[in-house]
């Protein structure tokens, strides 16, 4: 409940704390009176119950006004009073005096909250309280932990919800252990996505291959029909061979891919079960949220004097604990908002024929794949007409929009953070106070907030949240004004002060290691030539690298959202998350960053400054691109096409060989590893053919070893370009003479 600073603005918080102090003095006075009434004798059971109740109330109120230390002290005192009531009781003649001393010390603490010695006062109080429970206790000993005196839910409405559930045997596990497991399971999700992408590519490839074979087959059949021409027999033979080979390979690829898909499906199921199981461990019923609401409302009631009852429904609806924790603050805010601005004073209510005590209803339910939490009041409702006027008056909406918008849209505008600014402290502005915070918190959880209202009848806030959420720790950083995330498990070090990057700086020394530097400001943005840049050191699958960015924001808990089928081929991203203000933030895949930083990465991104001014001049003509990847063929077609080349493509060496026999090419660009006929073999055959022996050849490959380079040079290859191919690298290779 330390989120109170968020729930209230400073002025309101100060006011609430003042009210709390008054209330606390009264409560503590009651305790003192009961103790003193009994002299040095142990107080009666009723007196003890009353003392515990006021202390308990104090605890709740302290939480609401954001005084966690006071919550803890009240809890301790409550526990101590409970211990006194049990047999054997630690009560001694001196305990009465000790109790009175404790109460006075707490009052002293409350009167001097802001002073530097507040902590020291607290420590002394803790020691004193512990002495009540264990009179022989020495100051340095630990107090008894977790003696919960009253059943935690002191709910107004829950009281008639039947007897509390029977206690079950529980396994106590440190939450951190579960969180670690969840984090690993979250990681598994990234891994699965990566594998799925590759399988998807394989599947496309298998389909392409089958199609290519079919067209070859058809061409062959056609060719046989008109087989009278004398120059064709050799050609036909080669085609028939290739056709047969292709048929076999296509079938094998299809089978393998199908098998892989089945296994992937099994993996997906297992991961799903694992995650659901882990989430279930962390599930808790809405009861604790309702308890939180009851406690908050009790505090508010005492602080403001407004009579308001809480009704609850759907306490057994289950929430992921991680989600529930993030809901506490928004609920506090909604209750506070309802008490302060939604509910009419008793006399007004009476005049309207409403019961004098207002009712706030909190309902939880599961609706398909969503969890729905509703907070309704039976107050005055929101005047949408006035809200329209306000929206226009403050320049947020123009008049036609305000006229055309339906009530739902108008009410949604209430959630805008900007609507209720200071200086507009009327009822309407008040109603919007803090709703921005609610909106942000819910958006961060991947949910939505809706407001509905009936004038004179009340207002309902509906929070809709995804049933299952994958939360992960991520490191957030900024490039070019946009926020990005990297899964935090892979972040090993932060260099906030920045590292020097320049024309030659491609590595950075961390400890005994020299790591490659990947300039994310160049990969993701335009990257001004700042000399020092903040850097994040990542480690993935045993490889480390340094990523320079514009600004490091810090670690946050984020919800992982899939990018969807359309964006899935963009392997650089592992997913996305949604910020509190509803903006999409992309999550980078550490595997891809490592891949880009290690051999084969484009020079423009890896260290060297991006100098586009020296773009080389080009020759153009007809080019044949040979690569077994359709994606690369398409990419090359696009790059070369925009440079004025006429582009033909071939899926492998055999096909390329046929094409070069039919057409003369000004340039041939080939991959090395391909089915049927690999790159070197293709080049060797081309060099043996008079028609193609002088054709300039460029190799694109992921195997740019010295051995490959030597072999390429021996074959008279013009350039060898390491994959991944970028436009710049390609153009440079073509310009090489």
């Amino acid at each position, binding site marked *: 409940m330390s989120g109170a600073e968020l729930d209230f603005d400073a002025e309101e918080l100060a006011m609430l704390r003042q009210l709390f102090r008054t209330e606390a003095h009264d409560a503590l006075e009651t305790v003192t009176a009961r103790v003193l009434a009994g002299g040095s004798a142990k107080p009666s059971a009723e007196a003890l119950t009353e003392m515990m109740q006021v202390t308990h109330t104090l605890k709740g109120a302290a939480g609401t006004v954001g005084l966690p230390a006071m919550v803890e002290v009240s809890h301790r005192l409550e526990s101590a009073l409970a211990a006194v009531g049990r047999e054997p009781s630690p009560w001694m003649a001196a305990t009465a005096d000790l109790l009175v001393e404790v109460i006075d010390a707490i009052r002293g603490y409350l009167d001097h909250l802001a002073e530097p010695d507040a902590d020291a006062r607290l420590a002394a109080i803790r020691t004193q309280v512990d002495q009540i429970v264990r009179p022989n206790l020495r100051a340095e000993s630990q107090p008894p932990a977790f003696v919960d005196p009253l059943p935690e839910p002191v709910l107004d409405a829950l009281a008639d919800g039947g007897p509390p559930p029977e206690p079950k045997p529980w396994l106590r596990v440190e939450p951190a252990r579960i969180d670690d497991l969840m984090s690993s399971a979250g990681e598994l999700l990234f891994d699965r996505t990566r594998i799925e992408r590759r399988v998807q590519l394989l599947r496309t490839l298998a389909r392409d291959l089958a199609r290519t074979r079919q067209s070859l087959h058809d061409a062959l059949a056609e060719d046989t029909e008109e087989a009278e021409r004398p120059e064709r027999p050799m050609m036909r033979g080669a085609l028939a061979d290739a056709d047969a080979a292709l048929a076999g390979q296509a079938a094998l690829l299809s089978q393998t891919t199908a098998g892989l898909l089945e296994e992937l499906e099994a993996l997906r199921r297992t991961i799903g079960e694992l995650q659901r199981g882990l989430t279930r461990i962390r599930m808790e019923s809405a009861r604790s949220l309702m308890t939180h609401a009851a406690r908050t409302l009790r505090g508010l009631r005492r602080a403001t004097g407004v009579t308001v009852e809480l009704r609850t429904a759907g306490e057994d609806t289950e929430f992921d604990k991680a989600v529930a924790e993030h809901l506490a603050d928004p609920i506090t805010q909604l209750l506070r908002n309802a008490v302060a601005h939604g509910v009419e004073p008793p006399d007004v209510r009476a005049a309207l024929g409403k019961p004098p005590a207002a009712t706030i209803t909190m309902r939880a339910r599961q609706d398909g794949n969503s969890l729905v939490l509703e907070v309704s009041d039976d107050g005055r409702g929101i005047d949408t007409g006035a809200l329209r006027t306000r929206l226009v008056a403050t320049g947020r909406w123009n008049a036609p929009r305000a006229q055309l918008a339906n009530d739902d849209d108008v009410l949604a505008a209430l959630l805008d953070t900007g609507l209720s600014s200071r200086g507009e402290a009327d009822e309407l502005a008040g109603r919007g106070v803090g709703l921005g915070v609610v909106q942000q918190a819910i958006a961060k959880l991947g949910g939505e907030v809706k407001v509905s209202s009936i004038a004179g009848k009340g207002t309902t806030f509906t929070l809709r949240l995804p049933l299952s959420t994958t939360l992960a720790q991520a490191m957030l950083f900024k490039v070019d004004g946009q926020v990005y995330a990297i899964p935090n498990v892979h972040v090993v070090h932060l260099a906030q002060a920045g590292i020097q990057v320049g024309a030659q700086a491609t590595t950075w020394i961390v400890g005994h290691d020299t790591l490659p530097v990947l300039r994310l400001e160049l990969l993701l943005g335009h990257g001004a030539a700042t000399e020092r840049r903040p850097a994040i050191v990542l480690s993935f699958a045993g490889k480390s690298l340094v990523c320079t960015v514009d600004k490091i924001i810090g670690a946050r808990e984020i919800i992982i959202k899939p990018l*969807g089928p359309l964006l899935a081929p963009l392997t650089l991203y592992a997913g996305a998350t949604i910020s509190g203000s509803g903006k*999409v933030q992309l999550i980078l895949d550490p595997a891809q960053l490592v891949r880009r930083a290690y051999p*084969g990465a484009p020079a423009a991104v890896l260290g060297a400054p991006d100098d586009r001014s020296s773009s080389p001049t080009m020759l153009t003509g007809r080019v044949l691109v040979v690569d077994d990847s359709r*994606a690369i063929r398409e990419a090359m077609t696009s790059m070369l096409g925009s440079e004025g080349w006429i582009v033909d493509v071939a899926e492998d060496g055999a096909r390329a060989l046929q094409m070069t026999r039919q057409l003369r090419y000004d340039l041939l660009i080939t991959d090395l590893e391909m089915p049927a006929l690999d790159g070197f073999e293709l080049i060797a055959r081309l060099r043996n053919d008079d028609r193609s022996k002088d054709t300039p050849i460029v190799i694109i490959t992921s195997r740019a070893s010295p051995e490959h380079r030597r072999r390429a040079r021996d074959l008279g290859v013009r350039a060898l370009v390491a*994959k991944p191919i970028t436009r710049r690298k390609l153009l440079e290779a073509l310009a090489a003479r």
Partner: protein
Amino acid sequence: MAELRNVIIFTIGAVRYALELRWVRDVVSLGFVTSVPTAPAALGGVCNLHGAILPVLDVGVLLDGVAGLPARQGDGALVIEAEGMVCALRVDQVDHVASLHETAGEVIDATGRPLRLLDPGRLLHRALELVTAEAERPG
């Protein structure tokens, strides 16, 4: 044979298009548009639509390879769903809804002018092709 189509008519740049209503899930005003570095020009960015990630496409690039205005917060958009994919098409203006006869990929509007009837399946396939081509595949 001309078939009757229920279409939504909208404008992008200076061009008016028609799209069958059955593909249109929603007409929205875009939230903050996050740009996606390394993505092809056809992808104007991504938006948050009710907690899901929504790609925003540029119809001009997809149809004719000519980029339109960049997608910005507050721009109008049609949310369409086809071939198991959901995306938004940025539009400048949504004109109206009408029942028009289709002939060879075009519909004739009330003023007698022909409008291109968009095929969302083909648009999305083209988008997927462009994204796949742009995605560098190391190894």
